[in-house]
């Protein structure tokens, strides 16, 4: 294998000073975490880039597969190394460029000479190495202004480093660099996307789900667990808090007028979520709400629901179209899970005509006849917590395939 290290360029170049240091050390921790199953990685960090040593092909494959999903990485490149003499450099240049042998491409050689004592000047190196590549590859020509491929040669103290590929990273900020929030995870298409977008901005997530057995099945819970698990691909552990919600839902149905059930249900969910948030020390609550999508997501409804708390409610999808949300869900791989057919708790007691413009005073009035506080306490106390990524279960299908 010719690749000896992977060079990582950071995202969010605007971060400065102490923030930058935090950013880098957070990214390093997240990378270690993401690859903990393939052994201890050798990571060297610099001010503007990071180097990961590659020990074997297997490690390389896993790195190439998972790095594009880690937030905080602008781009990365596999790098090859050789001795500091011109003959070896020419040889290595040919090896590195071999991956393009089936394509018609333009290229240029870019030299970075951080070891100023190296006898050959940048432009000499460019000419020599470029010449070597051109003479052996009729499919490659030079274009200095806008090349398809930039062959980067770095003359460092200990060796020559060479790379030709730049692979796009996920961008964003390392998860955890912007605090923690609680994601309301329903099992639909929107909430995982909302979670993903916040993770991309560096927010660490825990998730909360309202479960109403026997009206909703274990399959619908499994779907939510799978979604939580899928979100861990983006570089973080996620804890899922499952709230037993049946009792509260049944009581709401008895106590408030049919067209207010939906609003009151949402308000109680929000109150429970806020309690859990406080419990786990998170700062905000994340929802997948998108303006006007359903009755509970009109501005009037959002106002009535929001009325129960002062906690910041983060709604990254508020101005997204459904189709835009589906696009992202497909890209991040949660769509297929989200469209599994199982009902969630919101669809159990839905009236035919829920109010799309509830009034806060009226809702408060209807709710004032019932003591919900104790039920809320109990639901929070009796919640079940699951940790993701899950420990690998024995694969019951393995022998069959």
């Amino acid at each position, binding site marked *: 294998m010719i690749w000896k290290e992977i060079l990582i360029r950071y995202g969010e170049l605007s971060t400065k000073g102490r923030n930058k240091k935090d950013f880098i050390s957070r990214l390093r921790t997240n990378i270690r975490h993401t690859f903990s199953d393939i052994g201890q990685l050798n990571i060297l960090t610099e001010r503007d880039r990071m180097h990961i040593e590659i020990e074997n092909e297997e490690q390389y494959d896993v790195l190439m597969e998972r790095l594009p999903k880690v937030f905080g990485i602008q781009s990365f490149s596999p790098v090859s190394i050789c001795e500091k003499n011109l003959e070896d450099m020419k040889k290595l240049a040919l090896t590195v460029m071999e991956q393009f042998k089936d394509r018609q491409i333009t290229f240029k050689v870019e030299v970075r000479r951080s070891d100023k004592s190296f006898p050959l000047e940048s432009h000499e190196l460019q000419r020599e190495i470029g010449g070597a590549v051109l003479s052996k590859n009729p499919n490659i020509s030079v274009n200095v202004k806008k090349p398809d491929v930039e062959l980067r040669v770095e003359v460092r103290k200990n060796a020559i480093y060479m790379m030709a590929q730049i692979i796009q990273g996920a961008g964003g900020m390392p998860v955890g660099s912007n605090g923690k929030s609680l994601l309301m995870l329903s099992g639909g298409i929107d909430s995982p996307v909302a979670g993903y977008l916040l993770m991309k901005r560096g927010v660490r997530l825990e998730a909360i789900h309202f479960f109403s057995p026997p009206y909703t099945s274990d399959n619908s819970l499994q779907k939510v667990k799978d979604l939580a698990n899928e979100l861990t691909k983006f570089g973080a552990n996620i804890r899922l808090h499952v709230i037993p919600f049946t009792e509260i839902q049944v009581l709401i149905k008895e106590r408030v007028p049919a067209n207010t059930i939906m609003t009151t249900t949402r308000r109680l969910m929000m109150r429970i979520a806020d309690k859990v948030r406080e419990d786990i020390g998170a700062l905000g609550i994340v929802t997948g709400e998108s303006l006007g999508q359903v009755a509970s997501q009109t501005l009037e409804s959002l106002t009535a629901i929001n009325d129960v708390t002062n906690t910041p409610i983060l709604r990254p999808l508020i101005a997204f179209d459904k189709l835009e949300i589906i696009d992202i869900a497909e890209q991040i791989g949660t769509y297929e899970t989200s469209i599994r057919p199982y009902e969630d708790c919101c669809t159990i007691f839905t009236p035919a005509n829920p109010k799309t413009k509830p009034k806060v005073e009226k809702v408060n009035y209807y709710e004032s006849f019932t003591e919900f506080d104790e039920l809320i306490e109990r639901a929070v106390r009796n919640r079940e917590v699951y940790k993701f990524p899950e420990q690998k279960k024995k694969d019951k299908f393995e022998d*069959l395939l």
Partner: protein
Amino acid sequence: MIYLDNSATTKPHKEVLDTFVQVNESFYANPASIHEAGVDANTLLDRARSQIAKILHTEDKYVLFTAGGTESNNFAIFGVPKANTHRGKHIITTEIEHPSILEAIKALQKDGYEVDYLQVDETGVISLEELQQKIRKDTVLVSIMHVNNEIGAIQPIEQAAKIIHENSRAVFHVDAVQSFGKLPIYFNADAGPDIISISGHKIHGLKGSGVIAFRKKMSIIPLLLGGGQESGLRSGTVAVPQAVALAKAARIATEQLEKSMDKYRKWHNDLIKFLTEFGDNIHLLSTEDGAPHILSFSVKDLKGEILINALQNRGIIVSTSSACSSKQKKTSHVVEALKIDQPFKKGVIRLSFGALNTDEDIDEFKKAFTSIMKELKGENY
């Protein structure tokens, strides 16, 4: 019994049969059901699909399970032109395709489609120049088999794909029933054929199971309508046990591919040498460049059937040119296309190797064949 008719069908591997039985016992629920048993069956089906998609270098969603090679071929031939009538009504294929291609195309011809049949040379290979000449702006489908079932000729799929994609917007279908698991197949998401057909029972899997795979999103009209299974492209409750058995057979075949290719190539070359020693009495239809697992030849002035019976008496199973055409009395269209001399037309024999054959089988065949030739043609042989 020495079974040398593996291109007709193969004996299922024990592991594959075990899988089939176990899945039927434990995961028999309908994968479209939403109860737990259904979810399990569906998860298993997805895993089987994913395993095959990996082998074929395409995405999971582009792998559909069918009831076999003929259905996969029919699906491609009927489904692609009908979804692309706005682009034209011209189809290109070869004169030596399997009947599941040729008969389907004949049906389209009756519906007003214009068809060009590419000719083959004496080794059974098409000419890329002819393909280049025949391809047109309004060509909607080109279907070329990878390995011919009767003589083992290998078509230049990679170059053909290039010509087709550079000169038209036609969809390129490859019938890979005889090559999948026997030869590396040039199929991946970036280039090459757009659709391939695969069959389970040619690779020690089960009869009644096949796959059609796409390289990318495809405009295609389904052959079977109903409950909308397989992304709406192939209705009918998916046969999960067959699908999983096929995934297993495909994995085993792929893992053993290089080893078995070497083994078949050795027998192939050895037998060519052996048969050449019979001089003018033998005409080889297969060449050294052909697929290693198929060896086809003809004995002068003899009927294939006589040879088959004589070998069978000695416990060796071979076939005339193909199992499908061997019950019909007329000369096969492939043999006709090769334009071989009249005295050799009737006596075509096909040997095809499989994973269960051994060196001893080949030696036994040689012994038996020598003694038969002596019997039928006198001591001189």
